[in-house]
């Protein structure tokens, strides 16, 4: 029998894990400095948390790992978490409701089925800003995500903006039956904008709105009055979008506008933003003011984003610090060896106990008469020392040098 890992799953080696922790650490440092606190939600949640209208699209739900739990005789299924935001909103509603503003972050794995060898388990770091509904709040998340991208050494990251309210108003204008409307909405949410572009071609003015792409929302600002005349329902969303872009411009944060690109989650209600490096999407988020109310958590606005860690393992330009020096402790008296290794660790060194008789960068040999000798492999230098404090002093001097 050949032992192998599951299809679509990945192992992380010690080298991968060092990189992973570095990336996660950079995200974590940024989140903490902006006042976010870490939460952890369970891997398994009820399926109906994600099927409730306005959470995940049917296409995404068709790829969740759902199954009956050991006490699932009612026929209700549970899932391996397919998304990070919905569980955090659930946690807030269940345990933090009424506490007002909450800045929360998480690092977690998400599970979605993919055909073939594509990853079925993906790691994300995400932030959720719950209880604030302003343009400033949206911009805080965008600025934070760009700061993380910057700290990760990513170059040419594009911040791409859209707005769920504008998209929904457009869809309403297209006078589709509920089924067609749902089909177009699903296709946009799954990242395909061609159906929407085709459908809106018939309405002059609106197709222009979809086709605008570029650095400045100037077009929207200049044509605000005309757009609002053509589609009065668009006004609150358009103004909301312009408010956000005005704050971004005042802070000199560069962005692109692409209204048609709404890829993401069905629960978005306001500004949607995505981070791209070339064609690769490395993160994204948006405003989801209806999610917590739909869970019975009261009228609480919220927005958030996630950074896709596994895509960044390949893209991030960061150097790992050199591995800390290890000291191998050798000797025939186990009690003494354990004691000396422990003293070294307490002083901040990595101390390994010799098991295979091989040498290391630094080897500390405990002789039968109780004396110690320290050998540096690289320099082939051997130093006789009398006591453990002397070894530590010697190594500290070496380390400082």
């Amino acid at each position, binding site marked *: *029998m*050949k032992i192998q890992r599951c299809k679509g799953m990945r192992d992380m080696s010690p080298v991968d894990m060092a990189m992973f922790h570095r990336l996660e650490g950079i995200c974590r440092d940024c989140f903490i400095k902006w006042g976010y606190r870490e939460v952890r939600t369970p891997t398994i949640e009820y399926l*109906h948390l994600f*099927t*409730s*209208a306005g959470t995940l699209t*049917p296409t995404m*739900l*068709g790829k969740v790992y*759902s199954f*009956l739990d*050991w*006490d*699932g*005789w*009612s*026929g*209700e*299924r549970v899932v391996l978490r397919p998304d990070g935001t919905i569980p955090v909103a659930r946690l807030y509603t269940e345990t933090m409701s009424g506490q007002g503003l909450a800045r929360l972050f998480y690092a977690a794995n998400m599970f979605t089925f993919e*055909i*073939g060898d594509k990853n079925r388990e993906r790691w994300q770091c995400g932030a959720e800003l719950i209880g604030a509904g302003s343009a400033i709040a949206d911009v805080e998340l965008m600025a934070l995500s760009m700061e993380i991208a910057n700290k990760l050494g990513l170059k040419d990251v594009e911040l791409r903006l859209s707005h769920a309210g504008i998209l929904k108003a457009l869809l309403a204008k297209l006078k589709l*039956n*509920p*089924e067609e409307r749902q089909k177009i909405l699903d296709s946009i949410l799954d990242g395909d904008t061609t159906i929407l572009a085709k459908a809106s071609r018939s309405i002059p003015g609106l197709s222009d709105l979809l086709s605008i792409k570029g650095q400045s929302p100037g077009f929207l600002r200049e044509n605000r009055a005309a757009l609002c005349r053509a589609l009065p329902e668009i006004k609150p969303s358009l103004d909301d979008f312009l408010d956000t872009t005005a704050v971004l411009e005042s802070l000199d944060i560069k962005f692109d506008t692409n209204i048609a690109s709404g890829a993401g989650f069905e629960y978005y209600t306001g500004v949607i933003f995505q981070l791209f490096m070339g064609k690769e999407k490395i993160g994204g988020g948006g405003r989801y003011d209806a999610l917590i109310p739909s869970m019975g958590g009261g009228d609480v606005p919220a927005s958030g984003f996630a950074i896709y860690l596994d895509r960044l393992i390949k893209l991030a330009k960061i150097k790992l610090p050199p591995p800390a020096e290890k000291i191998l402790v050798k000797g025939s008296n186990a009690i003494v060896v354990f004691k000396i290794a422990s003293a070294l660790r307490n002083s901040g060194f990595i101390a390994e106990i010799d098991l295979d008789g091989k040498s290391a960068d630094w080897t500390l040999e405990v002789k039968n008469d109780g004396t110690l000798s320290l050998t540096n492999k690289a320099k082939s230098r051997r130093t006789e020392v009398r006591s453990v404090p002397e070894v530590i002093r010697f190594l500290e001097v070496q380390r400082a040098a």
Partner: protein
Amino acid sequence: MPLKIALPKGRLLRKTAALLQKADWRLDEYHSSMGFYRPKSAKFPDLLMRVFHEKDIPIQIAMGNYDLGICGLDWIEELLVKYPSSDVVKVSDLQYGQSSLYMTSASKSMDLRQNGSPLRIASEYPNLAEAFALKHRLSRFSIFPVWGAAEAYPPENAEMALLAAEDTAEIMSYGLSPVSLVLDSSTFLIVNRNSRAKRDFDKIVASIVDAAPDIAKSAGEKKATAAGKITVSTPKYYPDTVRLALPDGHQQQQTVELLNKADIRIEGYPSTDGERRPKIALEGVVVKVIRPQDMPLQVANGNFDLAITGRDWVTDHLAQFPSSPVKEVLDLKLRKVRLVAVVSQNLSVNDSADLQGFVGGRAEPFRLASEYVNIADKFARENHLGHYRVIPTWGATEAFLPDDADLLIENTETGRTIARHNLKIIETLFESTACLIGNTGTVSAGKRQRMDYIVERLRTAVGDN
């Protein structure tokens, strides 16, 4: 290795036999009373043929056990909707055995997006039912996978049922209304993707396809009719009403004899016209006739207070849901069978202890076939079978050995069928008889009194045996 084809028994047998006769296959045995399920063709003497329950065929093709198969599109889609990367390729619509899958409910139409308590769907097609629920964005739902009689569940025990029927008139005859057409089904020739790439079976495929009528007709998922908004009316029983489930199928005769002995009179059971709600001459008690396999789950859910089923199905249920509130109330001492682990006579395994060593030395996963998938899974875990697969089956399981499985978990009364198929029993798991089951939850005093009355009547009747 010879090419292998899986042929259906049951509903599609007669027309499939007619098709193969037209294609001049000259089969020695392919009819409803055949004993060994392994016909031979004079036209393709090297082709290995095996007759399966229709539901088994897509799974056998997907696993690569068989190269070709003939079965209904409904069972193919039931597999593909959950496992889209399965190695099943549809080759041709054979234009017979048409039926449609309808989502049905007891009311004319219903609001599919209702909130609050879960919407319950009973179906022999649990994967298609789940796909329907996700597609129609039901905010909260439960799927009851049933062995049969799904039409009997609405409105009391489920809001909806996904059913196969010839037309909407058949749905109406159950007192149900079609909510949505989910699939138009027909009989299909299917092949395994990998063997199609590697092996040449053009002659066999051509011979089948040429014999089928060549009217171009595509079957596939049709647009669901828009659902209106009428609230579902679930009939409310008085809280003291006892809901009793009785078995359909071949257990009916013995059950009715026992009930007679207990002086519990039921009108219309066994039913001659498929009536599933016979009248019982006990006040405050209602009866429904469903599959015994489905009873433990329904009792666990609180859909029934008492049910007559087999200990085998209770054990299977508890293997899947160890903390289920289902309990055996009374052993009815009817229909005594043994649940046994069975292997081929040719296998050098004589008891379960030999299995671990046998399995450890193999490159391929060990295959257990059973109607009792949860008992089989537990058996494999407890015997440390390592890399194993459980193949769900729907009857005639003994024909799976030795080619299509390595071990069976089967029930047997006398052991004769097992011996006739050149198989041997390596372990008896337990003895099963019919039993009365109930739920450990608390009930009202009035209901308890009525339940106790039924239990005591039956206890006396069993004691008289």
